[in-house]
């Protein structure tokens, strides 16, 4: 999918967000970003840094503090032919816009039988682990994956971030683009300077293995890979699949990997009950029950509100918890 890659830069994930926006805004003058503090301030995480100076106040727009207003006006813009990329400052603040996302962005195409479409990308940093106040650590991708008409994307590397973001902006339908803020600056990766796309709906196998398939996404990809390396030393060979798109799920890759290993675990930050771990386990048993040698282990956030940061390390799946879960599945 990647077009020819002339030069590459070594970027953090949040820099790759910025680079994706910059690249697509340079190419397509219909693309604009709007949200709280995205303009002069460059975003509270600096994801829009410099864009205001580059593209001006009509394309990098500081809005009033109103999430329904941000997404709702972006829907009007999208229907009117622009390609808005609204930013919600933290996923915990997306709920005032929930109605506009699920009742309108997701339904405009079907409601108008295709006369109006809604090509927007709602960006929001999600997830815990940054010692932030209440409501700054949520991980509720399952809400959006349950709404037909939406696509839901979560990158885990700088390269994918830029490529998936560009895909999302070019996508003719609304995309909820969730950014793992825990790893915004945790590491760097090679990112082509040119524009390129990473397709929505395709998972990436991050580590091949034969004993168990471990499905994960976003910030949990790293502890999962770390657990896989630790387990390799103990003789357990994990395949780690980074799903990258939560809706539509790449069922083919999930099932294929599972058929190979016969065992699986899912690792996510969101509360276990009603999280996408259940959906994935369910797909597996639907499509490959006869291959199944152990229950699909769900290694997830607890079914409690995300705690204040003194306890967040206990809430989030740690490497040890991931290892333990995988071991349960392997030893079953």
């Amino acid at each position, binding site marked *: 999918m990647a077009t020819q890659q002339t030069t590459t830069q070594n970027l953090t994930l949040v820099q790759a967000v910025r680079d994706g926006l910059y690249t697509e805004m340079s190419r397509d003058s219909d693309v*604009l970003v709007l949200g709280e503090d995205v303009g002069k301030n460059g975003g509270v995480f600096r994801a829009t840094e410099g864009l205001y100076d580059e593209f001006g106040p*009509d394309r990098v727009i500081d*809005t*009033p503090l*109103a999430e*329904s*207003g941000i*997404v*709702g*006006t*972006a*829907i*009007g*813009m*999208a*229907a*009117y*032919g*622009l390609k*808005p990329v609204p930013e919600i400052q933290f996923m915990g603040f997306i709920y*005032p816009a929930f*109605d*506009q996302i699920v*009742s*309108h962005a997701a339904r*405009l*195409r*079907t*409601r*108008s*039988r*295709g*006369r*109006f*479409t809604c090509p927007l990308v709602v960006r929001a940093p999600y997830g815990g682990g940054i010692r932030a106040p209440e409501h700054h650590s949520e991980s509720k991708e399952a809400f959006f994956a349950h709404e*037909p*008409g939406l*696509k839901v994307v979560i990158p885990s590397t700088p390269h994918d971030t830029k490529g998936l973001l560009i895909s999302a902006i070019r996508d*003719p*339908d609304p995309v909820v683009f969730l950014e793992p803020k825990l790893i915004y600056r945790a590491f760097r990766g090679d990112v082509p300077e040119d524009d390129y796309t990473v397709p929505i*709906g395709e998972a990436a196998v991050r580590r091949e293995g034969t004993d168990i398939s471990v499905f994960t996404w976003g910030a949990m990809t790293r502890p999962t890979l770390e657990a896989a390396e630790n387990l390799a030393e103990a003789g357990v060979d994990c395949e780690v699949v980074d799903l990258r798109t939560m809706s*539509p*799920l790449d*069922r*083919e890759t999930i099932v294929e990997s599972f058929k190979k290993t016969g065992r699986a675990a899912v690792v996510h930050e969101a509360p276990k009950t009603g999280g996408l771990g259940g959906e994935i386990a369910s797909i597996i048993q639907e499509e490959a029950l006869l291959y199944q040698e152990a229950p699909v282990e769900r290694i997830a956030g607890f079914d409690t509100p995300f705690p204040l940061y003194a306890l967040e390390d206990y809430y989030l799946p740690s490497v040890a918890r991931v290892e333990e879960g995988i071991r349960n599945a392997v030893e079953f």
Partner: protein
Amino acid sequence: MSTLQHDPRDQVRVLDEDGEVVGEIPDLSDGELVEMYRQMRLARHFDKRAVSLQRQGRMGTYPPLSGQEGAQIGSAYALDEDDWLFPSYREHGAGVVRGLPLKQTLLYWMGHEDGNKMDEGVNIFPVAVPISTQILHATGAAWASKLKGENRAFICYFGDGGTSEGDFHEGLNFAGVFDTPNVFFCNNNQWAISVPRERQTASETIAQKAIAYGFDGVQVDGMDPLAVYAVTRAAVEKAKNPEEGQRRPTLVEAVQYRFGAHTTADDPTVYRDAEEVERWKAKDPIPRLEKFLRNTGRLDDEAVDGIRQSVEDEVAEAIREAEAVERPEPSEMFEHVYESLPEDLREQRASLEALREQYGDEAFLRE
């Protein structure tokens, strides 16, 4: 334009309840005035027939508009060709003025998505069922239009109840800040289903809420089509060519009454007096405009009769057309969810088709 400078408490009026002129007649040709009258009659007759279709089980729940024709037709008539209209769910009359075939409106309330599919060139957004959510879409579209360097106005309809929703506030506030070419048109018909206007808000008028957003608010007699036209026209012009220091958006409060039920599922006698309804019926916008047109020699018995007949024919034809449309193919459910169908939806569609094949449609249809 001066209409907009009014204190919101001074309701703008042009015709009184007897069709006597009490304000300035807007600059409309005789033909246009008669056409407005015809559109109002069309809306009224359509409404009567739609309610009756619902009663006969030929249509689902339907929200009647009788009493509100003055506000709908007067305002929609004030738009320019290129302008856009964002309806709630009751603007069947305004839709017609802007080129939406009655057949479409019927189809929609008959439960067909196609009723909401506007033809290219018809600048109307789909019906918005969730209250006031469309206000943000109208603000966003107007904003996009302004960013594109166009010069169009965007009218958005909502009810008195709609002013209580957060989206009303956010939409008008964004419009003020980004100075978008919007006309926010509140059909204050005194009731939100069973909840009276006084229970929606403690502010004396709805128009005065514009003060919170830094732009003009104006209250108009919503059962006076000419006053509505004048006020809306001024708002449209201001949206496109504001004077120095003026903000483009306007909040119009059109004071009116719904004569009938909220929808065909509602029984208004539970919550309001017959006496109140009668009081408002005396303000009926249709005889009012008719009297004025007759008094000024623009309309006579013969013309009125011709209009009655043509309106009845038009509605009858629309009903025939709508009822001739077959139930959509079940697989249409899967169209337009996304531009292209993802794999799992493809499978779901196939499984539905296989089941229909196997069991027949009887196995699905209830009743």
